[in-house]
């Protein structure tokens, strides 16, 4: 079964989440992952522009294995918009990734509007690091998705990181309210919620991601394999849905 991992970070990391390209390729081979959409770690220099350039070089070196997420800091305002333009027009990146926790902004706030408008214009998906309650609670992401219904918004971690399971309800509400919202599966510990969403909303609304190296690609692949779904449904989560979203083969 083809597996595309939509959610992996690479490069040196300000937060000690380093990931080399060589180790990543080895891990992909171990896990049977054929393609990865790469986002740059926040580097020690804090320069996301240089980090995006690093990802561009990796994608250029291994075009069959990697695609790129453009990572920008909305607080950089016009510069962030310019960087997203460059990442799309020159680097060929396929989407925008927002990390409200590491860049410290509320994802439901107007600070993201210029970037969302550009993503809309480019028809590119926007992945949001979800579950950081102060900045990206599931209902914050729902607000964002509702303000930009034409943009495909992907919420990571099953939209939450709540070990009490309270936020599972909010995640389900967000998914039901926002047809343009996609759930990425890394660390999503509640299989019955994913199975129910497939049943209620269709399998098209889930995509596989691992959030490597913070999380573990080996475990995250099995998270999907263990779901009580058909092979065709798992194939859609592993690869079919993200191929459709990105319009890739």
């Amino acid at each position, binding site marked *: 079964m083809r597996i595309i991992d939509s959610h992996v970070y690479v490069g040196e990391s300000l937060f000690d989440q380093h990931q080399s390209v060589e180790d990543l390729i080895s891990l992909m081979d171990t896990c049977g992952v054929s393609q990865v959409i790469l986002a740059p770690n926040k580097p020690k220099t804090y320069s996301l522009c240089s980090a995006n350039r690093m990802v561009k070089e990796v994608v250029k070196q291994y075009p069959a294995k990697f695609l790129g997420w453009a990572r920008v800091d909305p607080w950089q305002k016009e510069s962030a918009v310019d960087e997203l333009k460059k990442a799309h027009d020159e680097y060929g990146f396929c989407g925008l990734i927002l990390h409200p926790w590491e860049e410290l902004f509320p994802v439901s706030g107007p600070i993201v509007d210029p970037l969302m408008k550009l993503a809309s214009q480019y028809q590119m998906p926007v992945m949001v690091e979800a*579950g950081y309650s102060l900045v990206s609670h599931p209902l914050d992401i729902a607000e964002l998705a509702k303000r930009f219904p034409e943009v495909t918004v992907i919420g990571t971690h099953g939209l939450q*990181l*709540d*070990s*009490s*399971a*309270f936020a599972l309800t909010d995640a389900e509400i967000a998914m039901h309210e926002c047809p343009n919202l996609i759930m990425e599966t*890394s*660390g999503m*510990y*509640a*299989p*019955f919620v994913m199975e129910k969403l497939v049943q209620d909303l269709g399998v098209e609304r889930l995509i596989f991601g691992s959030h490597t190296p913070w*999380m*573990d690609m*080996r*475990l*995250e692949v*099995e*998270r999907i394999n*263990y779901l009580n779904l058909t092979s065709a449904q798992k194939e859609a989560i592993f690869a079919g849905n993200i191929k459709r979203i990105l319009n890739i083969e």
Partner: protein
Amino acid sequence: MVQNIILDSHAHVDVVPALGWYDTADKLIKLMDQAGISMAVISGYLNSPGPEPDNLRVIGEAVEKYPKRLIGYARLDPWFDEECIRTLEESVRNYKIRGVKLHPAHYTLYPFGPLTVKLAQRAGELGLPVLFHCGDEMMCLPYQIDRLAAQAPDTKIILAHIGGFFSNDSALEVAARRSNVWVDTSEIPFPNMVRKAVDHLGAEKVLFGSDAPCCDIRLEILKVELAGLSLEQEQLVMWKNYAQMMGIDTEELKCE
């Protein structure tokens, strides 16, 4: 499979239509069989005393039905003070309760406040461990529970989820500084944190837990397998530590 015996120190049985949770004992036993779990600790989703009178009966009946597979904990609300303690004592007699589960965010009390300390001390006198939901939310933070552990030194305290998604290092620090504190591996998606816990605390302080049926037991086992532990460490985590804590006859388990 890691080895023949697995003791799951953290699972649930309860049926609460208002929350949409229908986790019966039969359902859990099927999942345990599928994953090769010998015995599991169960607690409910509602606190006692609470909105449902005598809701510990569900746990008592599950343990009565599966006495060799399930170990019952009472999920309690310390706000009820003496009534809570009476509930615990009665449940030990009536429902073979062998531990306490506390989720302070459900009832909103400081874990280190006098009501919870009194309950934890009484649990210790009865020889019952106290399993805390321990995560990233207020009332459940590792350093809050640390202050309880200091006031109930004779009570065995377990910090679930190695502190959740973000409070892992704090949970490990608390378990390292307190001889009466353990951690359980349930729910979090971090094999490397299981490894870090074993390295930091020694394997003797780490208990396997699944938080089933909310979480997939097979995935919870795989997480420990991916942690890169020695066979001896794995066996301590997967069953020996909990068997020792509860005085479980593992020779009998091997014969099951």
